[in-house]
């Protein structure tokens, strides 16, 4: 997910699916970092460590802050006690769900060895492992 540059951006028919997967991964990564953190994590550090875009991070924050699971202070982001309990309760759903998507490659730079006219899975470096690290 880190550097899905334009050649890897899915076409319109798969864009929403792609965005959904990106958001799930962002949620997983952000929660993981905040769960481990003992002090508030500044935005820049959160984006860098979680390797997510500012858009995904904001969407995750908007969702989780509404339920009181994350708070944003001047020093950074923090998982609340309620958020910790919720993450533990839902750990299987959040962290262990296999996320994968297929899309029609738009560019020949997608793969040197395969035809671009067929549905492909993402290259290995862009797939999401069972335990996303």
């Amino acid at each position, binding site marked *: 997910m880190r550097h899905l540059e334009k050649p890897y951006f899915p076409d*319109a028919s798969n*864009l929403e699916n*792609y*965005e959904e997967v*990106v*958001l799930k991964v962002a949620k997983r990564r952000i929660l993981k970092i905040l769960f481990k953190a003992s002090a508030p994590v*500044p*935005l*820049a550090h959160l984006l860098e460590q979680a390797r997510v*875009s*500012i*858009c*995904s*991070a*904001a*969407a995750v*924050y*908007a969702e989780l*802050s509404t339920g009181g699971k994350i708070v944003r202070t001047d020093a950074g982001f923090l998982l609340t006690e309620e958020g910790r309990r919720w993450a533990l309760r839902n750990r299987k759903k959040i962290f262990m769900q296999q996320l994968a998507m297929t899309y029609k490659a738009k560019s020949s730079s997608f793969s040197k060895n395969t035809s671009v006219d067929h549905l492909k899975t993402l290259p290995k470096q862009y797939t999401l492992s069972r335990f996303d690290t």
Partner: protein
Amino acid sequence: MDSDIQERMFTLITKLSWTSRERYRRGLEAFIRDCSTSEFDVIEHILTNLRYCTSVDLEDAAEKAGAIITKAWHLDPDDTMIVGLSEPNKTCGSTAYVRAIELQLPRCWDKSINTNFVSAFRHRDGQKNLILIDDFIGTGEKLNKKIESLRNNPKTQSYTIHAISFAGMSFGIDFLSNKLSGRLHSELKLERAISNEDPIERGLHLIEQMESLEKDIFTKPGAYTFGYKKSETAFYLEATNIPNNNFPILWWDKYSDETPRETLFPRR
């Protein structure tokens, strides 16, 4: 990267749900890279005031347009033509709106609907009314040219012309509405995004910051400064070509030194 701007952009994205979609990431990151703290004021203002529409809005507007055609204007499919503004062999935003309106009208209208402006007039026998459909009215120039050409053509000058658009700038709509004696409906009527800002000091500050930002993309002010003919539009209908009346910082894909620039919205 300025962390203050990054924090402000983050806050902005949490407030505007459409901006949180991954498809807008590159355009938004370009704003963070390119803006100074004071220039970011105008980005915040434009994005906050930008009217972001989806296919749901288009459908709702088409439903109202259908009701206006049949119930307010009392038009009959037997003597009325509905015509989109697309040119031969060119894609056009009006086509989607014509289609959406078609789906809201009874089936008896099917034969009266044309997406292509030129070919529409090949089968015009017995028609009295004409409804021109466009997705967006900016200055009103494009639609006005069509109206003038129809009125100057002996074969079409007897038509009573109506117009429907999904959205438009209030000055363009007013100009065309006068031409059509009020027979124009636009679902959304938009005002200039900066000039109408109150208080005036705030407006002047935003103008100054926009001029500063546009220096990065234009070597000198031109036709698209503040949008085509200074329209100052802040509007986007999802998955369509953004109108050139919008501020060019939203869609101009080159910097003034001709290097490529990431844009928030596509325009071709």
